[in-house]
């Protein structure tokens, strides 16, 4: 009777230990990955709050019409922005553009150029993390 109880206890004990081992081996990496994703999400939210841009001026570079627009954008936030991930909408439509710099540092300005545009319109510039600014312009 004593041997039977010992054997049964040993078998169940080993299986409990194995189950705990499987559980720990699976749960810890999952929790770590989830925690990393949460940290990244938190970082993105913080970066969004620290991002701000202002379109300060639009000038015309051509005799026109159509006009080649030179758009001055200032980084009024506190993080560095990558201009290749910006988007430019003119009167609601996405435009191809060139930019004078790869990175836009805080308190610095960059120039975006878009070609063949009308003499007036509404411009929207969107940063890599979705923060944007609007500007209504008229070329006289």
């Amino acid at each position, binding site marked *: 009777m004593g041997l039977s109880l010992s054997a049964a206890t040993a078998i169940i004990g080993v299986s409990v230990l194995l189950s705990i081992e499987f559980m720990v081996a699976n749960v810890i990496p999952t929790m770590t990955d989830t925690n990393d994703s949460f940290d990244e999400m938190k970082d993105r939210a913080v970066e969004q709050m620290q991002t701000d841009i202002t379109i300060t001026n639009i000038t015309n570079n051509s005799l026109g019409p159509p006009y080649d627009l030179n758009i001055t954008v200032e980084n009024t936030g506190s993080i560095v922005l990558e201009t290749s991930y910006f*988007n430019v909408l003119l009167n609601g439509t*996405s435009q191809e553009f060139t930019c004078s710099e790869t990175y836009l540092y805080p308190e610095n300005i960059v120039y975006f150029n878009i070609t063949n545009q009308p003499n007036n319109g509404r411009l929207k510039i969107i940063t890599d993390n979705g923060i944007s600014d609007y500007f209504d312009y008229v070329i006289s």
Partner: protein
Amino acid sequence: MGFSLTGTHVVYFIASVIIASAVSGVLVAVTNNVNTSLSETGDRVQTQLDTDFKIVNDPNNIPNITGYYRFYIKNIGGRKLETTNTTFNLFVDGEIISTAKYNFSEESIQVGDITTIYVVNSEISSGDHDLRVVGPQAVYDEFEFKI
């Protein structure tokens, strides 16, 4: 009598080993199922945390070109976004848009990139509207605009 006592002990021993093995098997199987579910839940939570996008249109100027309104979706999350009719659903003023009535310019977009949703213009009348774009793991963005 001596033999039968030994025989009884052997029977007890075998029975207890069989029962313990059965309990162990069930325990390991249940643990394995729980592990799998936890792992899948973890993956889904991760996907949800990594997914984020934004409708970046100018709400006063929705382009209406060749019979389609264009809505721009920017990937502002932490992973590539599959942009297809099966991964995304569109609601205008709370009404779901049939998947046959919209399509995407790209099948996927990397972080920071933009894609265009083309919505058949007969689906949206003039006036003020609310667009809800629901993506993977029910992550969504809402956008009010005027046609």
